[in-house]
């Protein structure tokens, strides 16, 4: 992309939102960072993570949501506010993933409305790395409020869709800056083939402002607490995405 077009985009964005060009924090995965606009996860925006459509438990989705937030916590050196109906994130489990459980302030709220209220309240506070919330349903209005609050206050928001029952109707469109769908994948290499290895996720970038959708296979390195470099691949097993067919203006495919 030419520098003048980049500058023009920044100007338009500043006009639209009243804030200057978004800052990004790299996720530490070259393939993904190259795919995302600006070279990383946009700060001061709403990022939505959900489990695969047929998944009942949300271990991979929760893990990926934490993985997205981890570089942010590390870069800003501030706590992350995690609001949920059930505060069942397990401290030793976080430590086993290589994350610092002390970097999370957990809030147990009573329902979706309370979760969203607490998230907005957290977004107004300048002392947090970000705000994450688990909700069962998200209306477009609530999503827009969160996205606006994140943009205006300059704090990132993560929304984890956690299902407590079967999906009843089609998903409403989301206004989130990025939207990810996470499914489990057979784990990576282990010293013995019979043992579970590093967690792997089949991540679908459903929507991203300023980038094409894509599929990725990600691997998490428990020992270092970051994405594993070697195994992060574009997932081609699902066939080419529309972006690749069209060619999308010379964007580098990973």
């Amino acid at each position, binding site marked *: 992309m030419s520098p003048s077009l980049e500058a023009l985009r920044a100007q338009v964005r500043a006009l639209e939102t009243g804030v200057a060009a978004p800052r990004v924090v790299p996720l530490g995965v070259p393939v993904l960072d190259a795919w995302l606009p600006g070279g990383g996860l946009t700060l001061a925006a709403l990022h939505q993570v959900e489990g695969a459509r047929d998944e009942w438990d949300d*271990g991979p989705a929760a893990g990926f949501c934490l993985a997205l937030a981890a570089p942010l916590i590390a870069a800003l050196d501030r706590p992350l506010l995690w609001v949920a109906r059930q505060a069942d994130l397990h401290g030793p489990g976080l430590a086993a993933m290589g994350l610092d459980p002390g970097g999370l302030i957990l809030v147990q709220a009573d329902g979706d409305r309370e979760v969203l209220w607490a998230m907005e309240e957290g977004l107004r506070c300048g002392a947090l790395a970000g705000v994450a919330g688990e909700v069962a349903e998200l209306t477009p209005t609530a999503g827009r409020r969160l996205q606006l609050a994140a943009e205006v206050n300059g704090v990132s928001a993560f929304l984890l869709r956690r299902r407590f029952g079967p999906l009843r109707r089609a998903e409403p469109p989301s206004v989130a800056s990025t939207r990810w769908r996470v499914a489990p994948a057979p784990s990576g290499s282990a010293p013995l083939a019979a043992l579970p290895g590093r967690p792997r996720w089949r991540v679908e970038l459903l929507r991203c402002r300023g980038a094409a959708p894509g599929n990725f296979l990600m691997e998490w390195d428990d020992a270092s607490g970051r994405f594993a470099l070697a195994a992060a691949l574009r997932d081609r097993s699902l066939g080419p995405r529309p972006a690749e067919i069209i060619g999308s203006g010379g964007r580098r495919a990973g």
Partner: protein
Amino acid sequence: MLAAVDRAAAAAGLGPGMPLADGRAQVPGLKTAALTPLEDARALARLAEWCGRYTPWTAVDPAGSDPGAGAGLLLDVTGCAHLFGGEAALAADLAARLTGLGFAARLALADTVGAAWGLARFGCDRSTPWRVVPRGAARAALAPLPPAALRLSAAGGELLARFGLNSVGALYDLPPATLEPRFGPELAQRLRQALGLTPEVLSPLAPVPPHVARRVFAEPVMTAAPLARGLEKLAGGLCRRLESEALGARRLELTVYRVDGSLRRLALGTSRPSRDPDHLARLFAPEDIDPGFGIEVMTLAASVTEPLSALQMVLNPEGGAGAQDLAGLVDRLGARFGLGRVFRQRPVESHLPERASGLASALDPAGPAAWRRGRPRPLRLFAHPEAIEAVALLPDHPPARFRWRRVRHEVVRAEGPERIVPEWWRDDPGQAEARDYFRVEDAAGRRYWLYRAGRRWFLHGLFA
């Protein structure tokens, strides 16, 4: 037996102590209601609480709880009267409100509890339902009243009547030294109390918080905007008071007094002492305050305080505005959900997974080094392990397949067992069996934490 009568019945010649049959005979259409002393006492206590809109020092009169004689409330309005436009205005306002609430009330305001008690019962009548006795005039005001106005027991009053002492004034003429030997200690004590020679202390209904701010609305308030403004003013007033003593509030009590005589209390705590008016006012959500038919008076009290010097507010040792912001956020969330539900996790030395993490204050993190690593622990740990159907090929082997929430999972990879033995030093029923934990991965790559206790299998957590 009649315990109490209203004005009309008294005019018809009825009185307390009269048998009900006699009363019915005298007044054929007499309406009666059963005496319910407990409910009366409760209603009186509620009324005393409502009087907190005037002063925090309110109490149910211990000497006047007999319904026939008229139950009483005592209010210490020292230093409060000017808020309502003077003592006379306060008394008139209170009398009018009590009438509006449906009470037949007499009230007197005097230097001492004793004088006010006597004047309210014997110095007021229908035409003058309230009286204010100026400072120092209690002695003269009491003089024409009967001796019963001194809060005497029935026997004491009778004794005086036999001596022909029919007014309090007659007692003034007797040498004080002779009162006690002749009429017993009660009379002498009561007389000294009424005249202010012996101090008498009110025992208030609730402990009176030393730091209170009060706001009286000109008109009953029902909407959120004026409530929010009132809260800001209250918080400002309270914080000025706290500042003069270098204190910060740890616990706040907001009381709203509604038009219909009911009241509502909201109490909440702060995570650290604070006297920032904006912060304290924001802790209360105006929509949480149910205004009913309108709110007349609000009080904000700091019921628990801690020292907070001006220096601490300026030079925050933990780093500037960020830490203050975080404390404010934690307080707001805590006010809504309870401070115990806003927390960080801290490591606990326990092998049992459900005890391996404890609650810590949201404001002070533990370092990452303190957490034990190296063993598989799930990202989400269920508070209640869920029973599953599992099949293992050999006794100590991981399950080959299992069924959880009606979905069948084929186990492809597994790690374990990790045996976790219950902590025998805790007397905890239901924890008697050792558990063999397995980390398993199914064909799709989902990772679960299962355990076997005896012959039964449970799913205890989810991995990322």
